[in-house]
C-alpha cells in the first residue's frame, strides 16, 4: 500500500491553518466573549456579567425580540416540516423512480436555490409576490422559506436513500405489502435518520435567513435576523451580542445533532451484519 501523505509536514501548513481559523472564528469568539461584558462599551472589558442576557428577556426591547423569536421559530418549524415532506417525496421519485425523461433537469431545479445568489431569489420572489398581489407578511415569509429550504432537506434525504438497497422494498412487496405499506413500514424507518437530518438542516436554514426574509417580509413583522439587523442600524449594543450568541449556540447544537443523526445506523448497500 502507498504511504499516506502527512499533510502536516508541508511547509507553511501551520501558519495557513491558524490564519484561516482566526479569520473564520475570531469574530464569533469576540461576539461571544463580549456578550458577557458588564459594560455598555463593545470594546472595553468591564467584568463578567449576564446583564445583557437579562436585558434581552426583560429590557425595553424584550417584547420586540420575543415577537421576532416567536415568528422565527414558528416559521422555521412549519417551513422545515413542509419542505421535508416535499423533499422526501422528491428524493423517492428521483432515487427510486428509475430513469425518466428530464431527470437531470429535475435535479438541477431542485438544487437551484443553493446555486442562485440569494439576492436574486429575494428580488425575484418580491417581484413575483407583488405581481400576483400576494400580501407581504407572515405567510409570504413562510412560503418563501419552504421553497428555499427544499434543497437543503433534499440532500441528506437523497444521500440516505441512495444507500438503501432496493431489495428491502421488493421484499416488503413480495410479502404482500402494497407500495404504500412498503414505503411506510420499511423504507420510511430506514430513511428516518436522513429525513430527520434534512428536517434539522431546513430548520436552521430558515431560522437564520436574512436576505430573502428582509425583502419579502412587509412592514410590521420581524424575524430574529431582521430584528437584529434593525437594532444594529441604531448602533451595536451588547444585548445584540448576547442574542447572537444564543442564536449561534442553537445553530451549532442543531447542525451537530443533524450530523450525528445522519450518520446513525447507516445501512450498508446489502443486508449484512
Amino acid at each position: 500500500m502507498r504511504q499516506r501523505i502527512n499533510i502536516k509536514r508541508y511547509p507553511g501548513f501551520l501558519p495557513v491553518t491558524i490564519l484561516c481559523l482566526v479569520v473564520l472564528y475570531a469574530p464569533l469568539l469576540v461576539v461571544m466573549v463580549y456578550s458577557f461584558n458588564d459594560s455598555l462599551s463593545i470594546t472595553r472589558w468591564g467584568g463578567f456579567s449576564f446583564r445583557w442576557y437579562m436585558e434581552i428577556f426583560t429590557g425595553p426591547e424584550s417584547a420586540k425580540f420575543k415577537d421576532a423569536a416567536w415568528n422565527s421559530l414558528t416559521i422555521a418549524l412549519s417551513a422545515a416540516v413542509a419542505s421535508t415532506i416535499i423533499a422526501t417525496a422528491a428524493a423517492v421519485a428521483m432515487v427510486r423512480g428509475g430513469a425518466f425523461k428530464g431527470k437531470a433537469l429535475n435535479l438541477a431545479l431542485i438544487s437551484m436555490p443553493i446555486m442562485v445568489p440569494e439576492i436574486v431569489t429575494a428580488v425575484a420572489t418580491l417581484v413575483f409576490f407583488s405581481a400576483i398581489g400576494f400580501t407581504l407578511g407572515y405567510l409570504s415569509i413562510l412560503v418563501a422559506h419552504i421553497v428555499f429550504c427544499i434543497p437543503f432537506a433534499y440532500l441528506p434525504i437523497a444521500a440516505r436513500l441512495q444507500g438503501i438497497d432496493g431489495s428491502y422494498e421488493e421484499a416488503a412487496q413480495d410479502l404482500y405489502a402494497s407500495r404504500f405499506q412498503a414505503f411506510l413500514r420499511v423504507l420510511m424507518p430506514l430513511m428516518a435518520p436522513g429525513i430527520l437530518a434534512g428536517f434539522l438542516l431546513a430548520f436552521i436554514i430558515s431560522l437564520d435567513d436574512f436576505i430573502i426574509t428582509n425583502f419579502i417580509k412587509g412592514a410590521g413583522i420581524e424575524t430574529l435576523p431582521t430584528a437584529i439587523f434593525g437594532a444594529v442600524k441604531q448602533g451595536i449594543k451588547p444585548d445584540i451580542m448576547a442574542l447572537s450568541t444564543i442564536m449561534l449556540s442553537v445553530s451549532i447544537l442543531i447542525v451537530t445533532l443533524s450530523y450525528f443523526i445522519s450518520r446513525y445506523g447507516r445501512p450498508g448497500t446489502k443486508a449484512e451484519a
Partner: protein
Amino acid sequence: MSEQDIAIDVRNAVKRFGAVTALAGVSLTIRDNEFFTLLGPSGCGKTTLLRLIAGFEEITEGEILLYGEDIGTLPPNRRPINTVFQHYALFPHMTVAENVAFGMRRLGWSKADIEDQTGRILDLVKLGDLAARRPAQLSGGQQQRVALARAMAPRPKVLLLDEPLSALDLKLRQAMRIELKQIQEETGITFVFVTHDQEEALTMSDRIAVMSAGEIRQVGTPHEIYEAPNDRFVADFIGETNVLDVTVQRGPDGAWHSRLPNGAVFPCEAAGTPPQDGAAAHVLIRPERLSLVPEAESNSGLTGVVDQIVYLGTDIQYGVRLDEGPDVLVRAQNVGSDTTSFRNGDRVGLAIAPGGARLLVD
C-alpha cells in the same frame, strides 16, 4: 397433467430491457411439490426469469400461469409466491420474529395464528431462541435461515430462491444444501432455485433447467442433465467434458460407433436425432469415464502422452496429449497404490467405460 400438477407454467416468456433481450421466449413447466433449479452462467437470464415469476419485472411477451391462473400482470404483493433474496434483505429495524411475521400481518392473519406460525417456522429453521434478536446480531448463516423462514411463513404456493447460498462459506453452504432439500420435502412447497453452481444444482434438484443467453438449453433430472447432455454447452457447463471430432459409423449390429481420424472405432451412445452414417460429429466423454491403461490395452484406439498430473485429494487428474486430436482430461480415483499410477511423459492408452462416450451432431 392436470392444472393441480403444474405449479408454474411459463409460456413463451420474453423480457427485453430496452434493446437488450434478457429472455428470448422461454417455455417451462414446474411441477407441484418439485425442487426445480434454474442453472446457468451469470447473465443467462435465470434471475430475470425468477423476477418475472415474483412480479418484480414486467413481462414483455408471453404468459406466466400459477396453478392455471394467469399471474403475469399482477403486482408482487398479489402473487402467493415468496422470495428468498440473494442478500436476504432482512428488515434491519425489525426483530427476527417481526421479520417472519411481516407477510402474515399484511395478509391479515389473526394474532394467535401469526404467533403460532412464527414459532413453528422458527423451530423448523432451528432459530426458536433468537426470535427477539435483530438481523445485525446474527451470523450470515442465521440470517439466511431467517430469510427462509420469513418467505415460508405465509405458506406461499411457490418459494423462489435467488442464489441464497452464495454468500455463505463452503462448509455452511454444503450443510445448507442438505437442509434446504429436507425442508422442501417436509413442507411440500414447490421450490424454484436459481444458481450458477452446478454442484448445488445436482445435489438438491428434482429437475434442472440449464439456461444460456436467455434460452433454455435442456430440462431434465440431474442424472439426465449430467449423463445425457443435449449439446456441448450443457455438457461443458455441468462438469468437465472431453470433446473429440469423429465420424459416425453404424456397426453391423445397428449400434452407433465413432471412427477416429486414425481409423480406430469405438462404440458410443447417440443423443436426440440419430445421426447419418458417415456424418461428422463430436463425441463427449466425461473425464471419470476414461481411464489410463498401458498403450496396447486401449479399447478405443486413443493413445497419447501424459503431460500433466494434478492431485485433487480424492481424485487424480491426468492431462493427456493425444497423438491425434486435442488434449483430454482423465480422472482416476485416488486408491493409494503407486503401482497403477502413471508419470509425466509416459505413453498411455485410454480406455472408455461402457456407455461413457456420447455422440453429438451439431
